[in-house]
């Protein structure tokens, strides 16, 4: 397991899509190193023959009939939108128009 440094914190924050200030990077680097040292104790446990547990539920696939049921109205689904354009959530351009496209 590797040391966590400022570069790792910046890289991971970027993966998580979170803008951090320099002061936050500094503080989180120190704090997360301490936390990772503590969780690193898990290396002591021999888990060679142990399967992972993703959920403690004794359930496998849960299925139901695919029936049409009432859901939210368009207005209910849209009413919390920070910006909208008619019946659409308005966001910045995702894919630019290309010439001849």
């Amino acid at each position, binding site marked *: 397991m590797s040391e966590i440094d400022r570069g790792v914190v910046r890289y991971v924050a970027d993966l*998580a899509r979170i803008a951090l200030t320099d002061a936050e990077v500094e503080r989180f680097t120190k704090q997360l190193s301490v936390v990772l040292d503590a969780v690193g104790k898990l290396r002591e446990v021999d888990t060679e023959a142990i399967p992972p*547990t993703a959920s*403690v539920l004794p359930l496998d696939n849960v299925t139901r009939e695919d029936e049409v049921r009432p859901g939210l109205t368009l207005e209910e689904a849209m009413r*919390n939108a920070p910006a909208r354009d008619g019946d659409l959530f308005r966001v910045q351009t995702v894919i630019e128009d290309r010439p001849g496209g």
Partner: protein
Amino acid sequence: MAELPRTIGEAAALLRSRRASAVDLAKAAIERAGADPYNAWLTVSEDHALRQARAADERLARGYAALLCGIPWACKDIIGTKDVETTAGSRILDGYVPPYSATVVERLDREGAVMIGKTNLDEFAMGSSNENSAFGAVCNPWDPSRVPGGSSGGSAVSVAAGEVLFALGTDTGGSIRQPAALTGVAGMKPTYGRVSRYGVVAFASSLDQVGPFANSVADVAAVCQALFGQDPADATTMPLPAEDLRRELGKGVKGMRLGVPKEYFVTGIEPGVESAVREAIRELERQGASIEEVSLPSTDHALGVYYIIQPAEASANLARYDGVRYGLRVAGTDLVDTYKRTRGAGFGAEVKRRMILGTYALSSGYRDAYYVKAQKVRTVIKAEFERVFERVDALLTPTSPTVAFGIGAKVDDPLAMYLNDVFTLPVNIAGLPGISIPCGLSEGLPVGLQVIAGYNDEATMFRVAAAYERSTDHHLLRPPSFGTRSVGADPKRSPNATFGTSGTY
């Protein structure tokens, strides 16, 4: 200010004898919540509450009403409530008003319970002190310079300060049981799969459960009775036959085998906490239970498992807060920059720390070393509990290693803060039910006894907790700042009105 009755049972009796109406109780709760000096409430939804109270009175007048009909309650603000703002304690949900209610809220609505409002919490339930709320810390009524515990701190305080008769919280690593312990009330996390999470803001999905706070074990069981059961909207709820959770409340512990895991009495536990819990164990022994020391050898690794799995799941769950469909949006130079700025501005420090930790544990090259490793040790911890429950009916432990600590004492030391939950988070890792009940004071502050039972064996857990409660007065203790009524005081001498004793109702 009028005081509310202490328990749901007392309130239900008042309602049925017409000495108080549901509207009377709701008005008293609204007044107390509105005057709450602890910052326990984020929203007091007065109109909504009075509307529900009037409907409850109509049902009561018709003579057939559920036990919870007309009972004022408080809802942790991470549980979605139709048309009532839901913040999760975060700026990133700024202005969010859910278009539907969580299943747990619908079930309490159906019973006729009266929701007074939404309570303060650590942002996205990430915390053990309620200091991580974007809307300010919550104070402990036992000593306002101290924390109430977290993350369901507001819900715990709303019950401890007599503002409502019960409250809902969520518990991912101890967020119901630890604040219950620190504020001197009962608080319980059900078996994983017992209660629907539909409509609850997701934190760590393999660990989260919803559960109640109340002033008695019977009240906790009564609320569970309304909450439990499979929900077609939540595929992680178990299909179990209906049962009466209160059937064993009065049975006592004679002949029961109760285990005391030696790993839960370790360095770090305050002497006053240990002696209160040891005394509680002796009391159950006097009542005829046989006490056995047991061992859960991997307890020491639970914190490491928890602080990988929980932030990993949270980092995936919180990816949805992108400023597109609801909540805060901070515009950037392009869409990805907008995500980053929105999340940078909308999340508080603890949420950011856990997003980074969780993303790191899931990132390419580290996933097997951290996340999969933690899931394997989870298997070991779960198996150790299962082995112990072949020998004993329930386990007795402290809920928290310390009493309530000072506001600000641990905010800059995440690891010290995380250690508050060492006795509660193994229960979430295994998915077992656990309840914290008051077992006395240390340095004038409440101590909690945790009772843990086997899978779906809440009835046994309630049986042990109720037996202890009947034999002591610890659950009757009230914070020194609580109105003017104290245990044993003559209510007639109180200048405050008390329902049923003042003659007003």
